[in-house]
């Protein structure tokens, strides 16, 4: 503790250099923390869906295969099923936007029972149920696009060759794990439009999402569903919501790998940058280190002081980068500019992990300069000046 003032003074000795080093650590950690937050949030969302006992049913070939809407009633009639809905991805284009947001054709009567954590005010739910062309939108997307109850939302079909003219009848909300950037409309509205155009895609639910009566019966229920449609024209595959989401994540497997590789390269580069800075700082202070050793500062004390200095510089960058990212995403809503990223926030454990990483970068970058300073011969160090 007695040496802290000297360590702090050395950190602030060359403010520009400390600022640049700290900034490079801060910016890199900001990026790393965001990338890891993205991965961690995926896991958190998967965990959050666990208590709702939801099962997703798709064609055995996956999302591209047909899942007849007639299956929905047969699934609903199963004793173990509490409720079930179609959940059909529409993927229409809204005005001039090129990237579609999430739009699903579903059943307004049961959707809030299956998606229990998604909250729609009762009067708005009633209004939606009463309007065939009505829709319900997430609170975040409504805010970002400026939608209000009664607004018209035209969707131009891209996958499906039909256009939908929707009216906002309700706005759903939920906690941080709820995706508040979706739009739900009546499955029948889309299906009737397809039938009117005699499209072969008519009658395809895409996905059936159901809620089991309890958790323990889910494995048995999934097996039962698989068996029931095994010999039909469109055999199905039932899986838990977590498995379904994980299958998406598996497609992102390489993304995970790249995030790890990029983070590794960033950390390694930072080690070199910060290590070089510390080495330069110590080289300039060779004389001072020699004097400290001459008046009795031992190797351990010198080693500790230099390492402390390096850790402080690392942590300064960490506070700015990791905690800065936490603060920034807690106060600024980036979904306004990044559609689909409304769920992105920085969990505390990721921010703290970033801080620890910053401390580690500081420590590791200081090891070689600190070791050299500790080993410096006083005679050689002083000879440079006399």
């Amino acid at each position: 503790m007695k040496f802290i003032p000297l360590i702090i003074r050395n950190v602030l000795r060359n403010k520009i250099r400390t600022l640049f080093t700290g900034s490079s650590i801060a910016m890199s950690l900001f990026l790393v923390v965001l990338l890891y937050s993205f991965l961690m949030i995926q896991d958190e969302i998967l965990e959050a869906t666990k208590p709702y006992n939801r099962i997703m049913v798709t064609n055995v070939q996956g999302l591209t295969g047909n899942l007849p809407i007639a299956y929905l009633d047969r699934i609903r009639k199963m004793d173990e099923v509490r409720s079930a809905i179609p959940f059909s991805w529409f993927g229409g284009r809204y005005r001039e936007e090129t990237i579609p947001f999430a739009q699903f054709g579903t059943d307004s009567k049961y959707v809030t029972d299956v998606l229990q954590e998604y909250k729609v005010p009762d009067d708005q739910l009633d209004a939606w149920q009463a309007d065939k062309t009505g829709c319900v939108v997430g609170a975040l997307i409504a805010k970002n696009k400026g939608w209000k109850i009664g607004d018209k939302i035209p969707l131009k079909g891209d996958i499906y060759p039909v256009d939908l003219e929707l009216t906002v009848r309700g706005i759903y909300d939920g906690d941080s794990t709820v995706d508040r950037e979706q739009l739900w409309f009546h499955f029948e509205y889309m299906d009737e439009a397809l039938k009117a155009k005699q499209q072969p895609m008519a009658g395809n639910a895409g996905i059936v999402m159901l809620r089991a009566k309890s958790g323990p019966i889910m494995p048995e229920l999934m097996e039962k569903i698989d068996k029931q449609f095994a010999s039909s024209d469109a055999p199905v595959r039932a899986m838990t919501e977590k498995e379904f989401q994980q299958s998406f994540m598996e497609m992102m497997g390489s993304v995970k790998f790249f995030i790890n590789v990029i983070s590794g390269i960033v950390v390694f580069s930072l080690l070199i940058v910060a290590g070089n800075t510390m080495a330069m700082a110590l080289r300039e202070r060779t004389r001072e280190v020699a004097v400290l050793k001459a008046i009795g500062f031992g190797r351990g004390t010198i080693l500790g002081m230099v390492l402390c200095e390096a850790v402080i510089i690392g942590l300064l960058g960490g506070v700015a980068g990791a905690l800065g990212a936490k603060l920034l995403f807690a106060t600024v809503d980036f979904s306004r500019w990044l559609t689909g990223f409304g769920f992105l926030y920085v969990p505390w454990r990721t921010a703290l992990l970033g801080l620890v990483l910053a401390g580690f970068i500081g420590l590791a970058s200081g090891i070689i300069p600190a070791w050299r300073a500790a080993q410096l011969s006083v005679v050689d160090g002083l000879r440079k000046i006399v």
Partner: protein
Amino acid sequence: MPYDASDSVVQLLDVSKEFMRDKIRIPVLTNTTLHIPKGDFAAIMGPSGSGKSTLLNLAAGLDRPTTGRVIVNGQDLGVLSEAGLSRFRSENLGFIFQMYNLMPVLTAFENVELPLLLAPLNRAQRRQHVEAALRIVSLADRQDHYPRQLSGGQEQRVAIARAIANDPVLLLADEPTGNLDATSAQEVLDLLELLNTQFGTTIIMVTHDPKAARRAKRLLHLEKGTFVQADIEALETSR
């Protein structure tokens, strides 16, 4: 006068020191023996390369002799580890350098406090020591000034305060006036004389300056690693 070894603060016993430069052996000190009694103020003179600084480094435990023994304040430095030598220096020695070597990021007070950080003293005790040392060098009013805010002479006086803050038994000064103008050099030499006469501090001073050497009680002359003259009488005569 018969020599009493028990009274010596510094004893160099048959000390030789060689350096290796590109596989060439360079002898710097050759079978040198030296006794510095308690309360002495010895000036070491000699041409460049004669071994003055090497001798000072050996006495300070900053370097080890090739052969021979170095005993300071009764402690054989050869038996001490690196950590032991560091501790020994912090408890027994004070250093004054030609270039002052103050920490530019610390105030005069904090520079003087540096060696005391290694001593088992609390904050108040350290403050007491620092203020006393700064009073001795007449810089009590400049304790909050940084080295860049002081003149060369003042910087060297702060360096002296740092050297005496832990009340060392031996003060080692390497060209303490080498970087100073005549007036500042006189002030520094006055201080060293005061420390020696009033506080009984033993001082070894390496210098090129005969005027500085005259302020010492004893003159030692090194040439090619051997003392060739140690005649304070001659020096006194020349005063």
